[in-house]
């Protein structure tokens, strides 16, 4: 997979070249236009989230191939590295890309811990790092790193809040949550719980289970007897498949409405499922079943190319690539000027994304979206997809709170869910 040259001679050659570049900045700029822009893409191609990693690469490559792998007159070279779903490997590969591969910027990762490892590393090197999937709230909030930008990404709690509002409007007053016990889960549940209780709803109980829980039946038995109006489930990957399937087989489907955090009904989960997933309501900025012409076109292109509907991973990296490419166009490919490059990315408004609407970043490097409440439905050919039923315009990571005040409350955790009683 790695295309990095590691033999000693070329290593010498590239280090000498690098040394020369440092010594003669004038020449660098002169040569800038001819040297390709080198992007280091980190993707989990093996390990627990390998399927998502593959789609990440697919989305990213699809964009670059559509534009002929260049920005203006500068060619773009993509070096893909496998992070193995593991933070140590991820860090090691990021170092290799930056220090030996001389990439201009880094892109990618899926699992929060792999992304945080890379973010910590680029904090020291200043390498721009774009994270369309890493959703850890604080990366664009309390512990923001200026060279880490969430192009086409989202914070975990961002999309859960409109869902809470929607749930309250449906007349739900008592909701139980079940979630994977790690930061991404704490944050998505926190966003939901805080919003829902501030509106006047009640969170009856919160269940936290370890990642990769084989058997959900013990939790389902308890959920069934809580007397709640609805259940909010934050699940990803295989846990999501199992939870939804077992929720149906224990007869809860149809009895207690099920709402999911955005990843719970992502294409990567529902693609292999059938009736059991139908009707689940979730909330995200992207809905593959949207009638928006730009979305329809993107979905059709993606499906033609890869014979499957795009997941959040493919969509985010397609749009993220587009975002950075737009910024690069503005500065005529001058990726060497990092402060300018970062500033331009932050200021870029994405117009032609598959969302069909202009997307902006807030001052903290996180996008503001029109967020859809989506329902899993069957398409004419029997495939499941998420169809928007209503929309919340201009949802930022801070919802309607003042950013400074909001960031004074502690980050969401198992112990702090922002619940107002």
């Amino acid at each position, binding site marked *: 997979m790695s295309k990095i040259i590691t033999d000693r001679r070329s290593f010498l050659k590239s280090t000498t070249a690098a040394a020369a570049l440092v010594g003669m900045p004038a020449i660098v700029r002169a040569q800038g236009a001819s040297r390709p822009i080198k992007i280091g893409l980190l993707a989990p191609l*093996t*390990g*627990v*989230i*390998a*399927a*998502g*990693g*593959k789609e990440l690469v697919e989305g990213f490559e699809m964009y670059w191939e559509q534009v002929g792998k260049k920005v203006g007159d500068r060619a773009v070279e993509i070096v893909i590295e496998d992070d193995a779903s593991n933070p140590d490997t991820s860090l090691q590969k990021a170092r290799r890309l930056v220090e030996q591969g001389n990439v201009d910027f880094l892109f990618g990762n899926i699992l929060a811990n792999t992304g945080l490892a890379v973010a910590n590393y680029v904090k020291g090197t200043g390498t721009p790092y774009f994270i369309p999937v890493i959703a850890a709230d604080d990366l664009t909030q309390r512990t923001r790193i200026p060279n880490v930008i969430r192009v086409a990404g989202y914070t975990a709690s961002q999309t859960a809040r409109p869902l809470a509002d929607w749930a309250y409007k449906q007349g739900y007053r008592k909701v139980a949550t079940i979630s994977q*016990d790690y930061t991404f889960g704490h944050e998505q549940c926190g966003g939901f719980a805080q919003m829902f209780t501030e509106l006047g709803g009640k969170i009856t109980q919160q*269940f*936290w*289970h*370890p990642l*990769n*829980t*084989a*058997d959900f*039946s*013990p*939790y389902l*038995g*308890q959920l069934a*007897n809580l007397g709640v109006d609805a259940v909010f489930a934050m699940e990803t*990957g*295989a846990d*999501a*498949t*199992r939870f939804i*399937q*077992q929720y149906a*087989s*224990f*007869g809860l489907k149809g009895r207690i409405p099920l709402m999911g955090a955005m990843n719970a009904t992502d294409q*990567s*989960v529902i*693609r*292999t*499922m059938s009736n059991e997933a139908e009707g689940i309501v979730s909330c995200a900025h992207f809905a593959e079943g949207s009638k928006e012409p730009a979305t329809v076109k993107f979905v059709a292109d993606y499906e033609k190319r890869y014979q499957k509907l795009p997941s959040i991973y493919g969509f985010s990296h397609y749009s993220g690539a587009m975002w950075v490419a737009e910024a690069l166009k503005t500065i005529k490919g001058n990726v060497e000027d990092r402060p300018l490059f970062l500033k331009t990315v932050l200021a870029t408004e994405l117009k032609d994304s598959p969302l069909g609407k202009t997307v902006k970043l807030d001052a903290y490097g996180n996008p503001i979206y029109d967020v859809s409440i989506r329902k899993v439905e069957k398409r004419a050919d029997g495939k499941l997809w998420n169809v928007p039923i209503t929309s919340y315009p201009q949802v930022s990571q801070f919802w309607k709170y003042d950013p400074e005040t909001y960031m004074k409350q502690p980050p969401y955790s198992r112990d702090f869910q922002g619940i107002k009683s």
Partner: protein
Amino acid sequence: MLAFQIMNGLTFAALLFVVASGFTLIFGLLRIVNLAHGALYLFGGYIGFTISKLTGSFLIGGIGAMLCVAIMGLLLDQGLLRFVRGFELRQVMLTLGVAFVLNDLALVMWGGDTFTVATPEWLQGAVVIGSLFYPKFRIFVLVVGILVFISLWLLINKTRLGALIRAGVDDLEMVEACGIDIRRVFLVTFMLGSALAGLGGMLGGTFLALYPSADAEILVFSLAVVIIGGRGSLVGAAIGSLLIGLLNTFGQVWFPQLAYFVIFGPMAVLLAFRPLGLFGKAA
């Protein structure tokens, strides 16, 4: 409520037993800690998924999974393990390597999406006993688990092959000295153990889903079962499965924060007092 959770524990235990009984058979007789057992489980699930999808029959899928995985076991034993017979560490390392290779192979062949084996129509839905509402399929798994236990018990205690296996577990050299071709017994046991992993994969694939790394998870549970039950003991595997199944369920209900500790904590305590497990005998 209690009855419901006990059922959850029992049905999970039944699945664990199907997988772990194969593991303990191989471990007991061949002295191989077959770390590829989880990978065989995963392949069983994937193969069963594919066959049942193509034929539309759950039964054919199950039989196909068992047969294919038994053949994989045959290849593993005759093609690789034969060359390291008697070297425990090498065997363990070899099976670990095979586990990695198989896992990656599955990723290439089926992709990394999560699949579930379709439940046949006659097992869909639930039975209602009083106020208890319970999925038919999980009861089916429990029945299969009990049937597997009875058949294995009869095989081991009432047949000539079983007698050979028991003798082999106790004293391998003596059996060989009696003029019995123990290698053939080895082979049959290995295939039988693998077939059970395949059956487990088919059952597990239906309600626990199939995805990369599912093999490692079931392997950890199987190891725990066999460590608690004792090497090579069928009754031990049954008791171990029940313990782990029930601990897993009630641990999640009573101490959700400690879900994993509840399983492995008692295991550690047990090992401190009975290093060979509940029914283990010194080799």
